[in-house]
């Protein structure tokens, strides 16, 4: 399979944007993951709890980030993903993932990630990418 992927060179930065997260995505994710906390799709419940609207499961956001960045560098080369949630992703938000390759050690590139909706930071994270199949530069 010829999937076009990027090379994780140190210093390389990128910005990738998801499509808006709609209520349908949240419901479909609940079914796919088996995680049915109704706060994410029951509007009256979310409002009664003091939220302005429903918001995406954290793991939906993490999943979107993992697939977006994984597809950029090659799904088979992903060796790790970490994410810290900072703020909700509301229905209709379209998060942008900004990343930078900060190091390569022991054939593992580390990418630092910031996930934001316009100026609002919603998560920080990292991914590691196996570089052992990159061309040797010795």
């Amino acid at each position, binding site marked *: *399979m010829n*999937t076009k992927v990027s090379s994780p060179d140190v210093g390389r930065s990128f910005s990738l944007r*998801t*499509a808006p997260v709609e209520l349908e*995505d949240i419901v*479909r*994710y609940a079914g*796919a*993951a*088996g*995680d049915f*906390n109704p*706060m994410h799709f029951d509007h009256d419940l979310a409002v009664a*709890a003091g939220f302005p609207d429903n918001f995406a*499961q*954290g*793991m*939906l956001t*993490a*999943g*979107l980030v*993992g*697939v977006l960045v*994984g*597809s950029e560098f*090659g*799904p*088979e080369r*992903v*060796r*790790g*993903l*970490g*994410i*810290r*949630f900072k703020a909700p992703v509301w229905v209709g938000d379209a998060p942008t993932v900004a990343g930078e390759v900060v190091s390569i050690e022991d054939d593992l590139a580390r990418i630092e990630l910031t996930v934001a909706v316009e100026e609002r930071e919603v998560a920080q994270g990292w*991914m*590691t990418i*196996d570089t052992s199949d990159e061309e040797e530069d010795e």
Partner: protein
Amino acid sequence: VSAPEHAWPVHFAVERGKCRELADVLRAPDGPYREGRRLTAVPTFPVVSNHWGFSGADVLRDLGCDMKRVLHGGEEYEYPNGPLLEGQEVRGEQRLLSRESRTGGDGTPLAVLVLETVLTDAVTGDIAVRIRRTLIERGAPA
């Protein structure tokens, strides 16, 4: 604060249909997440363990946490031997690593819980994935 002894068995198979379902909802482009004879599982694939035994809600209940006050602080996955692949079967257990009291910026007492899951390949016995989940319970001293 020492962590009470808790462990929950985890076991799941990497099924083709579930790989495709997650690839669809996570909008994976054409490529290894959705095409080929053996699909690559998305990095967050282990969330499917909710369908195979203890769900995240069960774990919170066993820990005595009030689900309505629990926030998901973060999640980490390490795949030392590469991503999960279609057809693989993994098993292991989830354990409570730590449970600590903190104070939020607004003075709210918080309990920060860290859960670790180590899953090994059912055939080779090699470590397939290590997962760390951080949960924050607001208004609850640990």
